[in-house]
């Protein structure tokens, strides 16, 4: 089971790489869906069926809304940023960094607090030596690094939206790796958030396609109502009729 979950974490990272670099918009959306779906399951212990079902529904709904929003999207997208091999390389490097960080944390936790305050509750599985939290943190690192570019230097609404969804997935993975775990309400809230975030991303993509016919983020302030800056004495004088 552990090896399956580690492979799933790798698949999550690969999905993230696809999301930010694929030139076909729907392929990018598919990569995001894989990342969102997989991020719920890379946990030790696995949450209950209700939580997993909710996360599945939330992720599928988010992915579906983005998918249908891209019906009229121009394809393929103009070459911009890194390509798929480059993003995969970045994902591998970030995944390794996350894995190593988790290993270091696990080693620190293994030393034990002696008779001091306990770390019980937080990162229990990591402290117990499980490899799944390490994979989860690796995938989380990979998604954060991959999403950083499109989010910080947003040039089109598709990459921006997908990058933001990846960030939410990364936060969920960090919770799986280091959190208390087994917190069903938190997982349910995350499922609702992912669904709403997907709807919001889809709305922005649809609005952009309807307004401009493309996915590029409009630049400039584009003020619809100009207000000229001027001194008070330049204002309209009173006119007596």
């Amino acid at each position, binding site marked *: 089971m552990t090896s399956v979950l580690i492979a799933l974490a790798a698949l999550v990272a690969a999905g993230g790489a696809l999301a930010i670099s694929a030139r076909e918009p729907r392929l990018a959306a598919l990569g995001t869906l894989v990342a969102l779906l997989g991020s719920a399951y890379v946990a030790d212990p696995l949450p209950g069926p209700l939580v997993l079902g909710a996360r599945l529904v939330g992720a599928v709904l988010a992915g579906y809304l983005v998918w249908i929003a891209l019906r009229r999207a121009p394809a393929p997208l103009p070459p911009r940023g890194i390509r798929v091999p480059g993003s995969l390389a970045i994902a591998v490097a970030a995944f390794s960094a996350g894995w190593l960080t988790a290993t270091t944390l696990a080693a620190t936790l293994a030393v034990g607090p002696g008779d001091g305050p306990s*770390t019980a509750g937080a990162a229990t599985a990591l402290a117990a030596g499980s490899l799944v939290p390490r994979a989860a943190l690796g995938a989380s690192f990979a998604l954060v690094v991959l999403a950083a570019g499109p989010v910080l230097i947003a040039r089109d609404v598709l990459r921006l939206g997908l990058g933001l969804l990846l960030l939410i997935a990364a936060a969920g993975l960090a919770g799986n790796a280091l959190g208390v775990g087994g917190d069903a309400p938190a997982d349910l809230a995350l499922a609702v958030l992912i669904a709403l975030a997907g709807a919001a991303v889809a709305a922005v993509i649809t609005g952009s396609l309807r307004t401009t016919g493309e996915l590029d983020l409009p630049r400039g302030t584009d003020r619809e109502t100009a207000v000229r800056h001027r001194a008070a004495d330049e204002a309209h004088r009173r006119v007596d009729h």
Partner: protein
Amino acid sequence: MQLFLLLAVGAIGAAVSAWGLARDGRAARAGAIGGGIALLVLIALTFTLGTPAPRTSGGDGSAGAIAGGLFDGRLVPTAYLRLTLGVWGLDAAVLTCLAWLLGGLPRLRGVLPGTLAAMTGGVVVLASADLAVGAAAATATGLAALMAVPPSRGRSAVAAAARELRLTLAVGAVLLAVVAVAPLIAALTLSAAHTTSGTVDGGAAAATTAGASAMLGLAALAVTLGVGARLGAIPFHLRFSRLADAASPIDLPLLLAWLAVPVVVAGLAIVDGQIAPLALPLEGDRVVVIAVALVTMAGAALAAFAQDDLRHAAGYLVIADGGLVLLGFAALDPAAWGPARVWLVAMAASKTALIAWAAVAEDRFGTRSVPDLRGWLRRSPILAAGLMVTIVATYGIPGWVAFEARGTLARLAVDAPWDALLVLAGFLTLPTYLRLVALGAGAPTSKVDAAAPERIVRRRGEGVSLLKETLDVELEGPPPDAPGGPVGEATLDVVPDDAVGAVAPGRGRPAHGPSRRRVAAVVAGWSHDGTRGAGRLGGTLRRDRTELMAAAVLALAILAALTSWGALDIAGAAAEPAPITAGPAGD
């Protein structure tokens, strides 16, 4: 059960109003009525919300869990929830009326569903007993901004919606990540500190403590800067100006003031619940936050004073007051929990009144240019009273909770005498308010002169003549840019003169061309409401539109003043330990 009803009514109301108001005709009316009823029910439910569940104290005397509520104590009603939601709901009700007066149903498209959705999310945040749930709900609440700035409204709206989306989800990811990581780092810090004091390898443990402390400091800084970005703190302030240009002025109270409330509450809970109790030496991080707060207060106050654009000036005034909220984070002291939450609600209420004043002034005088507003006060005594009360509500009076919160936050953030500097920085916005008042007392500009003075017209004959004239103008055909389509905002803004005032009977001044277009534009907006069915009430509302709008601003200002004063013991409610910091009963 009441909490569940709150959530259900809010969610259904938001969905119904969003669906209906996105359409025209009957669907729009149904959406508006449905949303309005949901808002009123929400307010009623809020004020009748049951007494907060009694807290069960821990055996060691510490704060214990809270019993009752929804989902095994995961959502618990509190007095702060009741008061915050009550003020928010009342503000929203007045704003909804104001929006309808400003431009009919098209103006409700953003404010009504957006407010209902945000209030629903706010209920979850304020009632949450789980930090992760609170952070997720606060993030989801921020997405309501997209209902107020629908990306289908134009290029600038797409850009504004994308910025809101980025801010909301990026800040949400930061909050969720900190909630996940902070307990582990805190535990490591505590255990290493304990080892340091013992005999086992003190050097390595000290290094671990320092490393973990630094990471916790970074986590607190990330949360604070995320909240600061939502509040528009410098250097994240440009978003406010662009948002003010892209959104309808009546949607700005939600976008600039109220949507920040859930995020700030969740952020405060994370910092005060997970980091502040450790009492770590995080002086460097505190200095950064204090510097950001100080620069925000001073810089935004200066920008507001220098701005000639009314919307931008109002936006900068909101930003300056938001700087005070950051002091609650800089304190890194659970004692800041109460004052910060008091100031948060008082700020949202007072800024709502301010932005509503700016929206009404812009509509009445047909300009966003501050110099063009010279003489506004002479023509608008009720509106002037609204601004005056807003100023009082903003600063408060010694003894009022908002005034005390300013001082307390400054004292908790820095020691004397530097706290005086922070208190002073909080008053740097005063010259901007004085500028608006002084400008209003000057000789009226032609734009101000062309607008009608405020006076209630009660004689039937005059009202009929006014209605007749407005309908005549409507029959001439609405202007090509009249609201009715998806875009109604810019057209209303650029058409000068007040609709009703330009044809006010007894004034002996014929309506100018732009005034006629203005009337037609407003009537075109109202025509969505089914004007015939509205009958005499509708006629009265149209006839007294100017006064009613000013009265709405005054009502918002009075509400803000009551909040600032501390009505209904808001200070006590804000200071109570929230379930989000105490944990659920089930734990």
